[in-house]
């Protein structure tokens, strides 16, 4: 058993040694394809993670017709806080609203001179628990709040949320479609490159079959070689995409997404890196299988 394994690996390395150019072409193809894939994945992953970060700021603001009595306010707050989605409720009275508005206007705050606090409505700022920070939960809560006629108007960034969620959906869809096409193109190129290596060794394959080699005996070293090339290509892609990320992508995404500092822009985590290497191995294996079907006929 051990003898056969050693023999198998000797054959794999002999094959690689005998056609280094073709072998490098296969590794290079996998590397380029996976680098492009990793590059787009990084963009999508970072936009998604920032989206998740932004959604943490989702809160519902319920504007009141008039300032309630303290007893009434307490009754409302207790009712709202009892909702499972709600993390906290903060009451902003008219004075506080005017003060905030003034501070937001900054040097233009003198525009408000002569106006009293009554021009702005009091409001309840309702923040949601982490798992409920999405449009659906916000709408559920607002639906319940609407039963209280004293609450006149609600704002939870619905337009912005809808557009943002649609954009994310499009981004995810685009990434899946692009990833699929990229993988398919890579598979096609890898299979053809491996086919070239097999074509260069067709005499060996023919002689093997003639001296009584089983199909698996012939195929396994080529499958291992394909997997090895795929893995090597994936490692190169990982290195390449890390370099691209460090030198270009991080700054590009910081500028594009207007985040402060590059800390929020992340590289692939270890599971995603493993997935990339697994994809490389799979590419090499499937590429070999597709090519071997044509060449190994007993």
């Amino acid at each position: 058993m051990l003898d056969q394994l050693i023999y198998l690996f000797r054959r794999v390395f002999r094959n690689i040694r005998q056609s280094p150019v073709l072998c490098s072409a296969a590794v290079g193809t996998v590397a380029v394809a996976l680098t492009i894939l990793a590059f787009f994945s990084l963009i999508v992953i970072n936009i998604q993670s920032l989206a998740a970060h932004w959604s943490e700021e989702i809160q519902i603001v319920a504007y009141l017709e008039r300032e309630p009595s303290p007893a009434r306010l307490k009754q409302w707050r207790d009712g709202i806080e009892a909702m499972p989605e709600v993390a906290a409720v903060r009451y902003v009275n008219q004075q506080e609203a005017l003060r905030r508005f003034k501070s937001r206007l900054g040097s233009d705050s003198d525009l408000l001179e002569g106006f009293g606090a009554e021009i702005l409505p009091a409001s309840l700022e309702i923040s949601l628990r982490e798992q409920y920070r999405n449009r659906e939960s916000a709408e559920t809560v607002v639906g319940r709040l609407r039963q209280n006629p004293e609450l006149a108007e609600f704002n939870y960034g619905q337009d912005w949320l809808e557009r943002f969620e649609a954009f994310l959906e499009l981004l995810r869809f685009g990434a899946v479609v692009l990833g699929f096409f990229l993988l398919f193109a890579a598979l096609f190129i890898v299979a053809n490159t491996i086919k070239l290596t097999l074509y260069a060794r067709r005499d060996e394959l023919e002689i093997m079959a003639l001296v009584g080699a089983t199909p698996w005996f012939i195929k396994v070293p080529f499958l291992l070689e394909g997997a090895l090339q795929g893995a090597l290509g994936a490692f190169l892609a990982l290195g390449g995409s890390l370099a691209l990320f460090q030198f270009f992508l991080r700054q590009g995404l910081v500028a594009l997404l207007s985040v402060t500092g590059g800390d929020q822009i992340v590289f692939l985590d270890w599971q995603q890196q493993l997935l990339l290497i697994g994809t490389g191995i799979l590419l090499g294996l499937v590429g070999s299988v597709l090519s071997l079907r044509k060449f190994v006929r007993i």
Partner: protein
Amino acid sequence: MIHLYNVCKNYQKDAASALHNLNFKIAKGDFVYITGPSGAGKSTLLKLLYCAEKPSRGQILVNGKNITRMGSSHIPQLRRHTGIVFQDFKLLDNRTLFENVAFPLEVQGKKRFEISNKVYQALKHVGLHGKLQKYPLQLSGGEQQRVAIARALVVDPLILLADEPTGNLDLEVTLEIIELFKKANARGTTVLLATHDQEMIRRFPRRVIALENGQLVNDSAP
């Protein structure tokens, strides 16, 4: 050892038969020439015997087994007991003589010391044991064919199939090659040698199966 019953082979549906209604038997330990002009069907017949092709009709029994009904998973086993020699040698140019001859034994999963021993004996048998580490292209045509014969014989085959093995060689070398086939035959291997070289048949008379346009036209022993 080898029985053919009404064997026909058509490569294309409406084309003329490459082999037509062949019937003959070859006993264990026989030495048989398959002869005929180019296109007579000699190579096709050998291909049927090592299962590179399937007959369109008829049955072929080799060593008691019907190889026409044999599944593809059993073909490697059949080939491990069959030595095959070609006109163009079919050696691997990027491997040494030792590695070329060791190839069938590696395929069979033999141990390394057994391989070394057998390969050395096989190359000694064909007089090339002094060139173990040479590459095929460093040898003459005759020497290359001797390596191919060593590769065919290293597995102690029951049957040796040779397709025009001396087609590219001069008379002197041809005589050396035929000697090797005779020695293998003397050790009990059944030899089928396809050739159109009448001089060879005249010098070493043996049973002759003559084909023409895929048909058996003569089956005679000296």
